[in-house]
């Protein structure tokens, strides 16, 4: 159903970019429409997902965590077990294959936590592209391991010193590079944000998560779950898993944004909870901004959620009430990180730990006959240093 022909999800979406990029977006839209109708392309994508990414990823019943929470049965969708350690690879493979079909030679990407950067660098190595990844200086500092991984994979990492030196600024710089080199370059956006058709493309490539999860949970419990929980940065892992359940009206969909140091401190990244509609990075969507329409600095302990915008389809799903949004703050995420490590032997990405925190909180108030699925979007190896630093303090 969504989006409409102009790239709108209800009131949100569209294309708010410099004229220089408009033809490239039209070209991308045509190429994607073509690819989606080509069974060979779809088979090729499936084949890589199975043999290269390692799909389907397991749906794991977390018995110890369930016992700890004392209520609903908690299942984890193990996107952390994908090659490169997060859901991001589903999208980068799909777009990489699309870029190859379009005859592009170079991939560029923005990255926050570095997971999307690593997944893009990986696909560039696999499919033979030159690759440049833009990353904020602050994120380079806190996700040093991923920077090294990208460089090992043959990707050039460009340090962005502008603004808050995080994901937003990396995306500004990627767009500027794209404006300058638009004809040779494929811009591989890492979330369901950006101008049309990116939110649609990224959702579609991530929707494999939702399809698998629905099948797996029905297999395990005989019916759809009562609740699905995902963390929301730009919204790609969330849209990916929700897309399997949007039609199941009884399934409660919950999005968890980064509460940072607390919603009343102004130091958070809870775009849907605290923002209002605005335009950033090519689409109209909820945005954290001041009274003058200037984008405000945001904060989260997790670099992947540290973003003032959000995908337009999620803005629409907020307004319609289909998805409920809440927050977990830095301390909640750290606690959930430790909890999952100790109860299940799984180190989650700090992004995913936000979803775990809310799932545990919610499960306690639900009967033991009910089920919750958490999208465990990534693994926590990249965050070990951050967590160690926080625990020491």
């Amino acid at each position, binding site marked *: 159903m969504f989006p409409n022909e102009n790239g709108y999800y209800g009131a949100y979406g569209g294309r*708010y970019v*410099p*004229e220089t990029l408009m*033809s490239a977006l039209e070209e991308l839209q045509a190429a994607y429409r073509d690819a989606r109708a080509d069974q060979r392309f779809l088979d090729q994508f499936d084949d890589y997902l199975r043999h290269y990414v390692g799909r389907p990823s397991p749906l794991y019943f977390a018995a110890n965590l369930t016992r700890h929470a004392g209520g609903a049965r908690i299942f984890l969708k193990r996107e952390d077990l994908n090659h490169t350690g997060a859901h991001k690879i589903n999208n980068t493979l799909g777009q990489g294959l699309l870029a190859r079909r379009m005859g592009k030679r170079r991939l560029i990407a923005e990255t926050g936590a570095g997971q999307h950067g690593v997944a893009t660098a990986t696909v560039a190595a696999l499919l033979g592209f030159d690759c440049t990844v833009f990353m904020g200086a602050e994120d380079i500092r806190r996700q040093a391991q991923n920077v090294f991984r990208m460089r090992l994979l043959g990707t050039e990492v460009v340090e962005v010193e502008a603004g808050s030196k995080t994901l937003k600024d990396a995306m500004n710089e990627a767009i500027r590079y794209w*404006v*300058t080199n*638009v004809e040779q370059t494929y811009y591989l956006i890492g979330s369901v944000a950006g101008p049309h058709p990116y939110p649609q493309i990224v959702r579609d490539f991530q929707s494999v998560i939702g399809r698998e999860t629905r099948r797996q949970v029905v297999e395990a419990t005989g019916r759809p779950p009562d609740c699905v929980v995902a963390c929301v940065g730009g919204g790609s892992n969330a849209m990916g898993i929700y897309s399997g359940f949007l039609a199941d009206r009884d399934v409660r969909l919950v999005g968890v944004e980064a509460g940072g140091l607390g919603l009343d401190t102004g130091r958070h990244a809870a775009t849907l909870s605290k923002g209002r509609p*605005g335009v950033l990075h090519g689409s109209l969507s909820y945005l954290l901004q001041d009274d003058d*329409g200037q984008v405000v600095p945001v904060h989260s302990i997790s670099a992947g959620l540290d973003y003032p915008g959000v995908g337009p389809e999620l803005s629409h799903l907020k307004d319609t009430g289909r998805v409920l949004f809440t927050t977990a703050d830095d301390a909640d995420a750290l606690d959930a990180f430790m909890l999952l490590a100790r109860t299940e032997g799984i180190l989650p990405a700090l992004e995913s730990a936000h979803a775990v925190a809310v799932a545990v909180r919610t499960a306690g108030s639900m009967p033991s006959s009910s089920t919750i699925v958490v999208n465990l979007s990534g693994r926590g190896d990249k965050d070990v240093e951050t967590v160690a630093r926080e625990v020491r303090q």
Partner: protein
Amino acid sequence: MSTDRIALAFGGLRERGEKGLIPFVTAGYPDLETTERLVLGMAESGADLIELGVPFSDPLADGPVIQHASQIALTRGTNLARILELVARLRKRTAIPLVLMSYYNPILSYGPETLIAKAAGVGIDGLIIPDLPVEEAGDILALSDTLGVALIPLVAPTSGARRIAFIAERARGFVYCVSLTGVTGSGGRYSDQLTTMLDTVRAHTDLPAAIGFGIAEPGQARNLAPRADALIVGSAFVKRITEAGVNQAVAAAQELVQSLKRALAEK
């Protein structure tokens, strides 16, 4: 009414057989008081129209020079309300056409209808919104037509004939022709498509065509002059202003206006 000031300026240029110069400065850089003096000084030295940039936190069509100016302007509290006050003051002292260049979000946040009405009221003649392509501009175009502000569109070397026709037919005031694929201030390698782009624009509208992005030197101005009705120069002015410092800013900008105007007049 206000479209008239733009039409009048270009009409005068055509009559005199001259090419126009459109300097861009970031409003509030280094401060609003200096912006006021800059506009008056540049108008006096022969600028034909002036573009006032509204600072934005995420100026993704701009290179480092204008990014930096925007950031400084924002830290000094520059916003649309203060810029409108500035224009109201300027209008008492100059009839030069003034065009506001703003990313879309500050406009959206202010309320497009209120903003455009107030802009028309204080004497803004045109509006350039670099991240609002024609497809998204329908409502804003209707509002600005009603309220008498020209919504000036951009065409780019990548636009292609079909888009250029579509844009040119919806243009008001003049057509802003981007000289290169890149951000503002990138170093003057004009697109091979420049001539084709201008020919296509001219085939679809009688409005003047102004070329901008990456023009810094009198030599470049001289080369481009035969193809355009006017040239837009931004980063070069902002850079001069930075180098000169607050006290010398106006003199430095005036000097650049004069040298560019001289180059435009050379055959």
